[in-house]
C-alpha cells in the first residue's frame, strides 16, 4: 500500500462510499416495480436521491422530462468525482464522462437529420455543464443549423471535428447517419482504451477489469449486431470494431465476423456467465445484451471488494450509477405506458437475481 495512493484516493473513496450508499436499495426497486402508475413511481422516486431533481412543475414532468431530470444526478456525481480524483485517474473519468457528450452529439446529429426542433431534442440529451467541449448553446446551434455539413462545422473547436468531417464524405454519398455514428463510437473507444493504458499499477489493473469489461461488451455487441442485423461483410465488421479489449480478443471478433457460432464464441469468452438459452440458438440479441449488462454490473460491484485506493472505485460507481439510471428509464417508460411488471422486470440489469446477494 503506497502512502501517496491512500492520500490521493482517501477523499475520493470516502465520497464514493457516501454516494454508493445513496443508490437504490433492493426494497426501493421492489416498491418502484410495484408502483401503480407513473405518478406513484414519481412519488416513490421523490423520496430517493433523485427526489431533488424531480422538483419541477408536475405538469412539465413528462416521462421524457423525468428521465432528463434524473440524468442530472449522473451529471452531478460525475462532476463531483472528476473534481476530486487526482491525475492520471481523473483523465479516465473525463473519458468516461465524454461518452455522454458523444451520445449527445449523436442525438443532436439525428435531430439535424430528421429536421427536429430544439425543443424536441433538448430533453433527449444528457445534461452536461462542466468538463465538456460542446455546450448547450453549441448543441442548440447545431440543431438549428438544419444542414449536416454546417452542423459538423460547428464542432470545429472540439476533438470530434476531424472524425466527423472525414466521415461526412460518406454521409454525403449514403445519406445515412450510420458512418458518422460509428466513426464517433470507434474514436471514443480508442481514446478510452488509451486513457486506460496511461494508468499504471493497481489503477491500471482495476480499471482494465471494470472499464475494460464495458469496452469488451460494446465491441462484442457491435460485432454481433453488424453480422446479424446489418449483414455486413467480414471485412466491414472488422473495420467497424476494435482490435483490443480486456477479455474479448481480436480473434473473437474476427471469428464472429467470419461467421463462427456466436453462442460458442461468447461462451468461450465468459465461461462463468449464464446466458439465456435463446442465445445458443443465435437469436434474441436483447437477452444476450441484458446478460452482458448484468455481467458489467456484477464486475462493477466486485470492484468494491478489496483494496480501495484506486481509480477503479469511482469508475465502477459511475458505471453502476449509469446502469441504475438506464433501469429507471426502462421503469419510467414502462409505467408511463402502463405495462404490467412482468413485461419489463426482466429488462432491468441492476435488479437481477445477483443483485440480492451481491448488494454491498
Amino acid at each position, binding site marked *: 500500500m503506497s502512502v501517496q495512493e491512500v492520500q490521493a484516493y482517501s477523499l475520493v473513496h470516502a465520497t464514493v462510499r457516501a454516494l454508493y450508499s445513496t443508490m437504490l436499495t433492493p426494497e426501493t426497486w421492489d416498491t418502484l416495480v410495484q408502483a401503480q402508475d407513473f405518478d406513484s413511481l414519481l412519488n416513490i422516486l421523490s423520496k430517493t436521491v433523485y427526489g*431533488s431533481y424531480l422538483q419541477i412543475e408536475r405538469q412539465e414532468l413528462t416521462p421524457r422530462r423525468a428521465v432528463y431530470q434524473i440524468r442530472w444526478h449522473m451529471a452531478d456525481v460525475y462532476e463531483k468525482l472528476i473534481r476530486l480524483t487526482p491525475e492520471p485517474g481523473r483523465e479516465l473519468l473525463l473519458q468516461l464522462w465524454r461518452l455522454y457528450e458523444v451520445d449527445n452529439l449523436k442525438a443532436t446529429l439525428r435531430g439535424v437529420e430528421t429536421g427536429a426542433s430544439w425543443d424536441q431534442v433538448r430533453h433527449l440529451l444528457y445534461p452536461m455543464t462542466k468538463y465538456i467541449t460542446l455546450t448547450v448553446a453549441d448543441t442548440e446551434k447545431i440543431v438549428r443549423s438544419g444542414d449536416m455539413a454546417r452542423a459538423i462545422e460547428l464542432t470545429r473547436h472540439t476533438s470530434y471535428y*476531424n472524425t466527423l468531417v*472525414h466521415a461526412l464524405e460518406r454521409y454525403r454519398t449514403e445519406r445515412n447517419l450510420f458512418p458518422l455514428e460509428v466513426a464517433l463510437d470507434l474514436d471514443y473507444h480508442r481514446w478510452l482504451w488509451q486513457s486506460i493504458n496511461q494508468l499504471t499499477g493497481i489503477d491500471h489493473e482495476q480499471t482494465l477489469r471494470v472499464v475494460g469489461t464495458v469496452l469488451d461488451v460494446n465491441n462484442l455487441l457491435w460485432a454481433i449486431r453488424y453480422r446479424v442485423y446489418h449483414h455486413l461483410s467480414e471485412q466491414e465488421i472488422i473495420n467497424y470494431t476494435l*482490435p483490443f479489449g480486456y477479455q474479448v480478443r481480436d480473434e473473437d471478433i474476427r471469428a464472429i465476423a467470419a461467421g463462427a457460432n456466436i453462442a460458442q464464441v461468447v461462451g468461450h469468452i465468459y465461461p462463468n456467465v449464464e446466458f439465456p438459452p435463446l442465445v445458443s440458438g443465435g437469436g434474441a440479441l436483447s437477452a444476450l445484451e441484458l446478460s452482458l449488462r448484468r455481467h458489467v454490473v456484477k464486475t462493477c460491484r466486485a470492484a468494491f471488494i478489496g483494496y480501495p485506493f484506486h481509480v477503479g472505485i469511482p469508475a465502477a460507481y459511475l458505471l453502476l450509477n449509469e446502469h441504475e439510471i438506464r433501469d429507471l428509464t426502462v421503469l419510467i417508460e414502462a409505467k408511463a405506458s402502463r405495462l404490467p411488471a412482468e413485461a419489463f422486470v426482466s429488462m432491468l440489469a441492476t435488479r437481477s437475481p445477483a443483485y440480492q446477494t451481491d448488494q454491498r
Partner: protein
Amino acid sequence: MFRPQAMSKVELVVPEHDVVPVTKALAASGVFHPTLSSHLGGERVPHYAEDWQERAATFAELERRIMAVMETLDVDEGPPPAETPHLIEPETAQMDIEHLEWETRAPVRELEEGQRKLAQLQRYLDQLKPIADLEVDLGTLRNLRYTFVLLGTMPVANLERLQTSLELIPSALVTLRREEHLATVVLFGTQRDADILNRAARSAYLNALEPPETYHDTPAEAIAALKSEIERTRQYLTECQTTVDYLHETYVQRLCHLLWQVRASRTLAETITRYGRLRYTYLVAGWVPVSQMDTLQQEIKHVSDKVLIEVDTPSRQEDGHIPVALGNPLIMRAFQGLVTTYGRPRYDELDPTPMIALTFPLIFGIMFGDVGHGLVLALLGLALVSRKVRALRGLSGMGAVVIMCGIAAMLFGFLYGSIFGFEGVLKPLWMLPLENIMDILLATVGIGVGLLSLGMVCNIVNATLTRRWGHLIFDHNGLAGLIFYWSLLGLAASAFVGDLPISPILLAVLAGASGLAVTFSKVLERLVEGQRPLIEGNLSAYLIQTPIELFEIIIAFLSNTLSYVRMGAFAVAHGSLCLVIFIMAEIISPAHGMGYWIVVVLGNLFVIGFEGLIVGIQTLRLEYYEFFSKFFSGGGMHYRPLTLVSRGGE
C-alpha cells in the same frame, strides 16, 4: 437574509384584450416567475381566438431564419437590449426577413460554393502531392482492366484495422503520406475482388480521391493545373468576401434589432400559451417575492383595472415547488454565486450565503495573511468590480469576493506582522506563523472545531425550520452528533490537559449516550417522525451495519477536524515561500542591488498569483466539503423572473 425571500403565489384573471399589455408589464417588472397554468382553464377556446401556439411557432421559425442570415454574414447577436424592443407582427417580420434573405442569399451562396470548391481543389492537391513523382497517367489508372487501384485518404487510426481486415484478400495497402490524423494511401488488388475491397475501404473510411476527368495527365501536370485553378478561385473568393463584408456593415444593426424584436415576440407568445384559458379570460399563475407584491399589483392596475389578482403566501413548510429567490445585500451577491455553484438552497432551509461571506474571507485570510499581498488582491478586486479592464470583465462577479479576501489577508497580515513577505517591518499583533508552527496549527484546528460546530448548529436550525424533530435530535450532524463531537473532543483534551471544568466521567457518559443515539439514529428518527417500518430491510444486516457506520462517523469527525490544519499549514507555507524568495534574492544580489529587488517583486507576484489561487481552492474545498456537508442539501428551484429579452438557449 439568512433564508430565501418569502414568496407569494399570484393568480391573475386577465381579460382577453389585456393579455398582451399585462404580460409585458409582468415581464417589465422583472420579479414575476411564471408557472404553467394552462391546466387551470378547461373551457373550449372559441375559434376566433388568436392561436398563440401557432404564433410562437411562427416566431421561432422566423428567429431561426434571422439567425441563419446572421450566421452567414458573421453577425453576432450581441448583448440583450436594455429596454424591451417593440413587439412585431409575424407578417411584418416575415417581410423583413424575406427581403434580407433575398439580399444576402446570392452573394453568400457564391462565397460558400467558392469556399467548397477551394477546399475540394486543395484536397485534390494534397492527395496528389505524395505521388507527384510518378510518371503515370491518371486517366489510365481510372480505366485499369485487371488491377484494382484506389487512391484516397483515411484516418491514421484505421490503417492497421484495414490491413487486418484484408489479410485473406490478395491486396496491398501502401501509405504515401501520413499526417496527424489522415493518411494518403493507395489500395491495390484485383478487379475480381473489387466489391470486397471497395466495401472494406469504405468501412475503414477510406475516402477515394477522384479528381475530375479534366485532370488526366501525370500527377505533376495535374498538380500544376490544380495550382492555377486554386489561384483563380482565391481571387474570386476575395471579390465575394468584399460583397459579403459590405452586406455585413449594411445590415448588422437591422438584423440585431429584428432578432430581438422577434425573440421578444416569440417569448411573449410562448408565455401566453402557458396561461390557462377560459372563454373570455386568461388565467395567469406565478410567484413573486412578498416584498415586491405591492409594486407589481400597482403596475398591473396601471395597465388594466379589469385584472383580478389573488395572492396567497404559503408557509415555509408547505409542500410545493416554490422558486427560491435569494435576497442578500449587494456585498454578499458574489458569495451567493459560490453557494449556488454548490447548490441552490431549498425554500425551507437556511441560505448559507451570510455564513460563507464571513467564513470564506476568514479562512482565506488565515492562510494568506500578508498586508501587501492582501492590498494587491483588494486592488485587483476593485479593478474587477469596476469592469474597466476589458480582459477581466468576465470575472467582475468575483470582484467583491477578491476584495473581501484581500481585506482579510491584510488583517491577518497585521496579526502575523508580514508585508510583502518582510517580517521585520511590522510588529506582529498575534504571532509569526513560521516561528510558532505548533501554535498556529492548534489555533486553526480550534477554528475548525468552531466552524464544524457552526455547521451542525445550522443543521439543527434547518431541522427546526422544517420540523424534522427526529433528524434534529438524533442525526450525526444534529443535537446528538454535536454532543457526541464535543464530548469526544473533551475526552481527547482531558488526556492532555489535566484540569477540565467537566469531569472525564461525565464526558464519557455523554459520549456513550449521544454515541448510542447517533448509532441508532435512523430507527430513532423514524420512531419520532412516525414513519414505519422502523428498520428498512433486514434486521441482522442493520445490526451489522450500524457499528460500522458509527466508526465511519468518528473517522469523519476526526478527518473533518484535521482538515482545518491546512489553514495553519498554508500560513506557515506562505511565510516559507516568502523566505525562499528573499534567500534567492540574496544569492542573486547580496548587496541588495537591482537584481535583489527584481527577484523580490517577481517572487511576490508569484506568491500572489500561484499561492493565492491554491489558497482560494483550498478555502472553497473547506467550505464545500467540511462546512456545507454538515447542513446544506440544496436542490431548490431556480427563481427565473419572466423577461422578453433573454438570450436563446437554456
